[in-house]
């Protein structure tokens, strides 16, 4: 049975369990020859139903989940171990490639058509293992479910505190759900760190951190002439910073001034229209911005740059940064809005009471008072800009040039990650692993920025609470 069928069967079993549990609870609590035994029950009947369903469902589902998660890797390694020793001693890449072929062959359902006997054997071995696994999985899961149902059913008695039991299970389920956030972070750290460590075994961290040349092409064959690839990440980080800086130079003043105008000057009706319109900018998917940058903004900048005699690359950092800036305007403005409105009214009153105009109050009292919060917001925006991917993938360049001229093409960390991992991947090559090292850098930087920013903002809020 496929996973889907097992799940449907299990679901039917659960519903069945619920009803027999509920029915039995009423039956066991009703003295012979009388009716209305519910009063003798500790909990209301449906809780007994839930309890039986939990017994029937949770162990079985757990087994199913674990089995399905590790099925493919276990079967693959079993298949590999069934190969002849000479084949097993091949490099990891070769085995990986071969296993792919074997899997494809087994799934095509037409093993006999393959000419290579080794592959044919392996594929049929794989298929056999897969068959056994599926059958065993189905039988075990369903048997466990039925057993659970039986246990739950036998446990029912009028004194059984079914509601408390069910609630305990629900509570643990809730704790488990909330722990997924932790699991996800662990998963992220694990996935980038693990591969990065591999990478740093091949490339020394100092080369990566301080090298100024980035050309990740490694030789495909041992004897091939050419570079062994250089992995200096400085140009990527400089490119990222350049584009992010352009974005912030555009977004911070525009976003801040928009927020100020909307919160201090605009009438209620204008605000109720203008704010959502500004929010639209935040709701547009980044891929749309990327398309806009590449199709409209970049040629526009190039055209005008050339009209005044500047040489502008067709994938200039300016175009990507400009469009990214537009994207984060609403981000900056809504953060500034929060921060500005946290400045107590008494500050404004004091300033107006002295005869200050609105703009004097804003510039000399509100903004200085809100400065920590604004700085925090800018850092958050910076972290957003550094991690942004689609705009730069579509509008920034690929070649890693170390420059701070906004009219030239630069590449960024995220662009390189995407390029490396969406192209043809050579497994375990430094080139592929470099993507993970870059991601590690990205992860650390954005996390630090966020941590610092939130810390500043929290301190700032406490000041006025």
């Amino acid at each position: 049975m496929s996973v889907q069928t097992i799940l449907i069967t299990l679901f039917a079993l659960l519903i069945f369990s619920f009803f027999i549990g509920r029915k039995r609870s009423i039956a066991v609590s009703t003295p012979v020859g009388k009716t209305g035994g519910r009063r003798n029950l500790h909990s209301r009947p449906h809780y007994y139903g839930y309890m039986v369903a939990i017994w029937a469902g949770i162990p079985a589902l757990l087994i199913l989940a674990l089995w399905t998660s590790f099925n493919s890797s276990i079967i693959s390694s079993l298949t590999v171990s069934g190969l002849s020793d000479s084949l097993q001693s091949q490099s990891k890449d070769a085995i990986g490639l071969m296993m792919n072929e074997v899997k494809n062959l087994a799934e095509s359902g037409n093993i006999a058509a393959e000419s290579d006997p080794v592959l044919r054997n392996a594929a049929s071995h794989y298929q056999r293992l897969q068959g056994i696994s599926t059958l065993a999985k189905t039988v075990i899961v369903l048997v466990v479910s039925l057993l659970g149902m039986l246990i739950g059913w036998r446990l029912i008695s009028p004194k059984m505190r079914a509601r408390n039991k069910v609630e305990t299970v629900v509570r643990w389920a809730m704790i488990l759900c909330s722990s997924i956030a932790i699991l996800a972070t662990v998963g992220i750290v694990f996935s980038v760190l693990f591969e990065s460590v591999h990478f740093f075994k091949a490339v020394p961290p100092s080369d990566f951190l301080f090298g100024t040349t980035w050309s990740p092409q490694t030789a495909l064959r041992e004897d091939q002439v050419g570079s062994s690839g250089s992995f200096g990440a400085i140009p990527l980080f400089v490119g990222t910073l350049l584009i992010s800086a352009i974005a912030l130079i555009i977004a911070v003043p525009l976003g801040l001034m928009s927020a100020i105008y909307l919160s201090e000057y605009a009438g209620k009706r204008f605000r109720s229209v203008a704010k959502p319109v500004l929010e639209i900018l935040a709701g547009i998917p980044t891929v749309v911005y990327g398309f806009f940058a590449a199709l409209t903004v970049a040629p526009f900048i190039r055209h005008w740059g050339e009209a005044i005699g500047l040489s502008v690359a067709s994938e200039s950092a300016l175009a990507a940064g400009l469009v990214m800036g537009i994207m984060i305007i609403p981000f900056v403005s809504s953060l500034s809005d929060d921060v500005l409105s946290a400045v107590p009214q008494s500050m404004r009153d004091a300033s107006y009471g002295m005869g200050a105009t609105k703009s004097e109050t804003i510039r000399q009292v509100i903004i200085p008072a809100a400065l920590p919060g604004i700085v925090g917001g800018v850092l958050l925006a910076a972290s957003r800009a550094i991690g942004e991917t689609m705009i730069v993938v579509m509008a920034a360049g690929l070649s890693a040039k170390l420059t701070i001229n906004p009219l030239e093409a630069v590449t960024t960390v995220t662009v390189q990650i995407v390029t490396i991992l969406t192209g043809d991947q050579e497994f375990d090559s430094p080139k592929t692993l470099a993507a993970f090292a870059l991601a590690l850098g990205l992860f650390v930087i954005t996390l630090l920025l966020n941590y610092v920013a939130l810390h500043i903002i929290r301190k700032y809020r406490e000041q006025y609470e």
Partner: protein
Amino acid sequence: MTELKPDIEKRSEFDIEINGTVGKPFVDNPKMSSRNCDVFYGDKQAIFDVNLDIANNEIIAMIGPSGCGKSTYLRVLNRMNDTIPICKVTGEHTLDGEDIYGKKQDPVLLRARVGMVFQKPNPFPKSIYDNVAYGARLHGLASNRSELDDVVESSLIKAGLFKEVKDDLNKPGTGLSGGQQQRLCIARAIAVDPEVILMDEPTSALDPIATALIEELMDELKENYTIAIVTHSMQQAARVSQRTAYFHLGKLVEVNETDKVFTNPEHQLTENYITGRFG
């Protein structure tokens, strides 16, 4: 059959009528004056037909139960209510005979002439020096640094704070104690050389010793300034003011010399209030 009203309702303050203001609301040659003042917050009327003069170099206290409109009225006098969009002020209000709400009147200039001190000390998150210099810088009152230094120093001296802070002028004003902060706010207000100072319950957030210091200060200030103070404390009104105005539910009930108000009030409501029947 006539319905019997319970006794308690007869005694309720709501049954006592307020027909205009009793006492002496008007003076000769007033510094500020209001005629037929109504204030609305949206549809709600907060002040009803207040007529009052404020004399030169006097301290006038405004008392009354909370929500009676005394603070709202105070904010009418320097157009602070302009900053609240739903607030509407009507009537005639003058400062030295000039219409406060007239087209020619500039709210910025008005607020420089009619300064304000607030209930809660609200120094800016800047240094003590910058706090006091704020108004002078805004209005361009000092043409160079030494003039500005003079303004700051003399204001702090007038506010009785200079001795305490003269070595810490560059420390943040928010680091001072509550009473010092409030005196800093007073120094900040007098640094622009106003003619009138409005004080909105300036000591309600302070301890008795700080309160006493501020009250002393007010006594000194009245030599040069006209002061209108809203206060919660009848004792304070009795201590510092020459005249007292009693507000009740948005109406100005009685204005008289302070002694008279507290010893022999003309209006029943005033009497009820000062004898502590409500409020």
